[in-house]
């Protein structure tokens, strides 16, 4: 059994760059590459694609990512673990085999199944967010449980080169290979907690190497145009050293590690995953070299009896329109323009909003006082159940060209369908996971 393993994270969201993962496999001396590509809403959107075409529903970038990675993964004997299966991991596995055949390579894929619990949802269940019946939110389109290590482990034991999942908790993608390689007991809550800390630090990829961190004045980060993604060398005792490939851009410091450790964590003493309730409070970081941060501490309590289920629902349409004003009285002309559209159509919408981009669109009017920008972009958004009505927002903004204040330019209109996401808890005994093997 290994004393140390190396896991890299080559993607932290569905639209992430492709090249950092290639560099990690080529030069990172990895045992495992993880690609985390599944946000809350992504799977509901994928479910809708799958309904229209049953051969789709996996990550839209799966083909491009696998085409680049497959030869490198084989050359360096690195296994891939990824949630790019999204709403249809079985079709994703078929696609991977097709790519392998095209490239003249042999590969095997283990698909983790069981997260799709749509058939087990009645719609009467109360949501965690509002304690209201799920069906009161709108037409339900998906329900996926967050699976954990126990679901991924059989896929690792199968020996497959690639482990393809749908919805699993992000840190579990990293904890599973630790449990597998070190033979950790899943009831050892201290090790489960430590491994979850490492997984959480890695799961957003570039967010621990200087991405979403850099500020040229207070937190400068070098060579962000070639930002490297992170890897961790994990020891059997659960401690780890986070680093990145030499000559990539970015930086790994105690500061970047602290920001990422706390990212999206509601209670640092009770971080719920399917594997453990982790405690991040005792974690400590030490810089043991340039771009080398050692992580120790972290612990946990026994895993919860329920799993979180993300439920997607149809939430109508958002229409948007934008137009810019510059020079003398730019803001007052933009305000007049906003006023015109508001008077004409605001009363037709469930929700309606007027923003002044360059002024107050991000932090509200109060924090934005005392600034007088040279140019302002008016942005109007409205949400409606009806697609045509939502479209009206952009049309009304565009009509400001000839009917609105002087000097309006650069009008744009947008329309998109809204898929909302709420959560419920489900007894974990009711959720049965399994695997299916594919070989080319």
């Amino acid at each position: 059994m290994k004393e140390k393993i190396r896991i890299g994270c080559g993607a932290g969201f569905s639209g992430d760059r492709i090249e950092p993962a290639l560099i990690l496999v080529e030069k990172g001396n990895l045992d495992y590459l993880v690609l985390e590509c599944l946000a809350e809403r992504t799977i509901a959107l994928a479910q809708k694609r799958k309904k229209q075409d049953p051969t789709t529903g996996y990550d839209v970038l799966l083909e491009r990512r696998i085409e680049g990675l497959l030869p490198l993964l084989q050359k360096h004997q690195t296994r891939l673990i990824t949630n790019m299966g999204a709403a249809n991991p079985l079709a994703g596995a078929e696609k991977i085999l097709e790519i392998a055949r095209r490239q003249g390579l042999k590969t095997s894929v283990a698909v983790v199944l069981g997260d799709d619990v749509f058939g087990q949802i009645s719609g009467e269940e109360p949501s965690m967010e509002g304690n209201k019946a799920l069906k009161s939110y709108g037409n339900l389109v998906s329900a996926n449980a967050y699976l954990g290590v126990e679901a991924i482990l059989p896929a690792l034991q199968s020996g497959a080169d690639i482990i393809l999942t749908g919805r699993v908790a992000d840190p579990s993608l990293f904890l599973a290979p630790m449990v597998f390689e070190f033979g950790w007991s899943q009831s050892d809550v201290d090790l489960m907690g430590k491994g979850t800390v490492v997984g959480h630090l890695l799961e957003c990829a570039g967010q621990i190497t200087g991405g979403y961190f850099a500020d040229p004045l207070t937190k400068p980060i070098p060579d962000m145009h070639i930002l490297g993604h992170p890897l961790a060398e994990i020891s059997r005792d659960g401690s780890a050293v986070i680093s990145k490939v030499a000559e990539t851009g970015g930086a790994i410091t105690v500061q970047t590690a602290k920001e990422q450790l706390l990212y999206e964590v509601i209670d640092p003493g009770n971080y719920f995953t399917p594997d453990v309730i982790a405690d991040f409070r005792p974690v400590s970081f030490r810089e043991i070299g340039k771009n080398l941060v050692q992580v120790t501490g972290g612990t946990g309590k026994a895993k919860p009896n329920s799993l979180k289920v993300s439920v997607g629902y149809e939430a109508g349409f958002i229409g948007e329109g934008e137009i810019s004003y510059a020079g003398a009285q730019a803001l007052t002309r933009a305000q007049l323009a906003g006023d015109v559209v508001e008077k004409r159509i605001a009363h037709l919408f469930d929700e309606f909003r007027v923003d002044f981009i360059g002024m107050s669109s991000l932090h509200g009017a109060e924090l934005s006082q005392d600034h007088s920008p040279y140019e302002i972009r008016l942005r109007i958004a409205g949400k409606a159940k009806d697609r045509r009505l939502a479209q009206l927002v952009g049309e009304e903004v565009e009509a400001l060209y000839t009917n609105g204040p002087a000097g309006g330019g650069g009008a744009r209109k947008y329309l998109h369908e809204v898929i909302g996401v709420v959560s419920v808890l489900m007894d974990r005994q009711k959720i049965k996971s399994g695997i299916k093997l594919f070989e080319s």
Partner: protein
Amino acid sequence: MKIRLSSIAHSRAGDKGNTLILSLIPFDKDDFEFLERTVTAERVKAHLAHQVKGEVIRYVLPELRAFQFVCFDALSSGVTTSLAMDAHGKSLSYALLEMEIQDYTKG
């Protein structure tokens, strides 16, 4: 004299549904106690009143020399359905750092 929080600390914003989560980390770990006295949950709630409609809870993390502010009902229904420009609230770390605090002399 007053200074802005941005001159002595950094922050990252995260979201979970309609909950906004803001870390606060001093550049100099010796400023931890000063921040603990100064940047209370009540002050953060008042400072972000236009954005945060619910409660603000502060977690103090002495081992990490950091704070976590958890702000409920803060993202106009959350990323999937919000009409806001920045539906995740990712820019709001810099709203927290706009807070004005009394300057102090380090002991």
